[in-house]
C-alpha cells in the first residue's frame, strides 16, 4: 500500500537521506585521506595558536604583565591550597552547613514478583 500523503513521503525520504549521508559520510570520514586532512587542519590551528601564544607572552613580558602560563600556575597553586584546606576541614570534622533533613530508614525490600 502506498501513501498518498506527500508529507509522509517527504519524511520517509528524509530518513533515507540521513541513512545514506551517515553511510557515505562515515565511510569517507574513516578514510586515510580524510584523517590526514583533518589532522592537517588541526596542526595548522595549533601552529597559529603556538605563534600567537609566543607573541602574546613576549608582549606581556614587555608590558611587565603576567603571562597566561603564570596565571595558570597561580590558579593551580590556589587550587592546591583549597584542596589542603578542604582536607584540614575534613580532618577537623568541619562540614558545610546543610539544613537537617530526616534520614530515611534503610530497610526497604524489593517488591515481590507477581505470578
Amino acid at each position, binding site marked *: 500500500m502506498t501513501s498518498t500523503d506527500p508529507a509522509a513521503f517527504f519524511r520517509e525520504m528524509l530518513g533515507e*537521506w540521513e*541513512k545514506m549521508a551517515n553511510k557515505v559520510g562515515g565511510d569517507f570520514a574513516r578514510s586515510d585521506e*580524510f584523517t590526514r586532512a583533518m589532522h592537517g587542519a588541526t596542526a595548522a590551528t595549533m601552529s597559529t595558536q603556538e605563534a600567537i601564544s609566543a607573541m602574546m607572552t613576549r608582549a606581556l613580558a614587555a608590558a611587565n604583565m603576567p603571562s597566561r602560563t603564570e596565571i595558570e600556575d597561580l590558579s593551580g597553586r590556589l*587550587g592546591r591550597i583549597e584542596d589542603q584546606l578542604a582536607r584540614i576541614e575534613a580532618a577537623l570534622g568541619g562540614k558545610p552547613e546543610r539544613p537537617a533533613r530526616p534520614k*530515611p530508614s534503610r530497610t526497604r525490600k524489593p517488591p515481590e514478583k507477581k505470578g
Partner: protein
Amino acid sequence: MATAAFDVLDGAAREFERAMQRNLKGLEYFQTGGPTLGATPKDVLIERGTMRLYHYHPRADDVYRVPLLLVMATTNRGYIFDMVPGQSLVEYLLDAGFDVFMLDWDAPRADERNLSLESYVLDFLPAAVARVKEESGEDDVTVVAYCFGGVLSLLWAALHPDDGLANLVTFTTPVDFSRMEMFQSWADRRFFDVDRLVDTFGNCPGDYLYTAFDMLRPGQRAAGNIRLYDNLWNDDFVKAYRMFDRWSADILPLAGEYFRQTTKKLMWGNELIEGTLEVGGRRVDLGNINVPFLHVAAEHDHIVPTAASAPLVGMVGSKDKNEIVLKGGHVSLVAGGNAIKRLWPNLVEWLGVRSI
C-alpha cells in the same frame, strides 16, 4: 478513488494547520530557553576542581540499605541522568526507593591539565565512594556508570577489591578499543600527534571532541534540524529535541594528560583487553571484580559499538554477571522515552534484590 481524494484533502488540511502552528511556535522557540535540566533537589558533597559529588534528596521514607553512586563519563554532563521531571533516571531511582549519589564532572581548569588516569581512578573515585559511605553510614556502595565512566569504575573496582563495592553496573562501556572503528581511524598515530595537541592546548578542547562526536553521524545534524522544523507544532517533540540537543552540545574538555594517556594506552595500545594496562604502576585485572555485575549495551550504539563492549562480561571475575542488549542508541539507552520503558525498569529490578 474517492477515499484517496479524501486522504489527500485530509492530509493537506493537517499540513496547513501544522504550518500555521510552526509559524507561531517558531517565534516562541527563539524567544524562550529550553527546559531546566538537572533540577532534582540535591546537596553538593564534594566540589574539588573538575570533580563534583552530589547527593539527591531521598523521596522515600524507607530506602534500600545499599546507596547507589552514578558515575558519569568524563566527556559529558551528568544531567543526562536527570533531564526533566518524568524523564529523569535519578527521579525514577529515588521513587523506586534508592539513596542516589552522582559523581559528575565540570570542565577541568587550565591548571588541571596534569590530571591523569591515576587522578580519576586512584583519587576521585575512591574519594567519592568514601564520602558516599560516610554520608549513608553504610560500608558498601553500588556503582552504576555510563560509557567512559564505566571504564574508570572498572579500573577502580579491579584495583580496589576491598573498598566496599556491592554491585557494579556499566552502560555502553568499551573494553576492546580496536572495535571503535571511527575513533580508531581518527586517532591513527600516523596522522594524530596527541603529544603536540596536549602540549599546545593543555586540555583537549571540548569543541574538538564535539566535532568528533558530530562526525560519527555526518547526516544527523542536518536531518535533525529539518525534523525540528517539521515538528515545531509538536511541543513534546520540541521539548525533547531541546533537551538532547543541549546535552549533546555540552561536551566537556578533557584534562590533557588524561587524554594523552587514554589515547596511547587504550586507543593505540588497547591495553585493557590485552591485559597490559597499568594504573599507578599496578596491573589492572578485571578478573579481580567479584561483585554482582551487569553490563547494558545498546543495539544501535554508534559511539561504543556492541563489539567494543562484548568481551567485558567474560573478563569480569564475578559469578553473578550478565549482559543485556537493549534496542536503542548510545544516548536513547539511558534517557528519553525508550529508556523509561526498557532500561530503567530492568535496572531497578536487577538492583532491588541486590541492594538489601
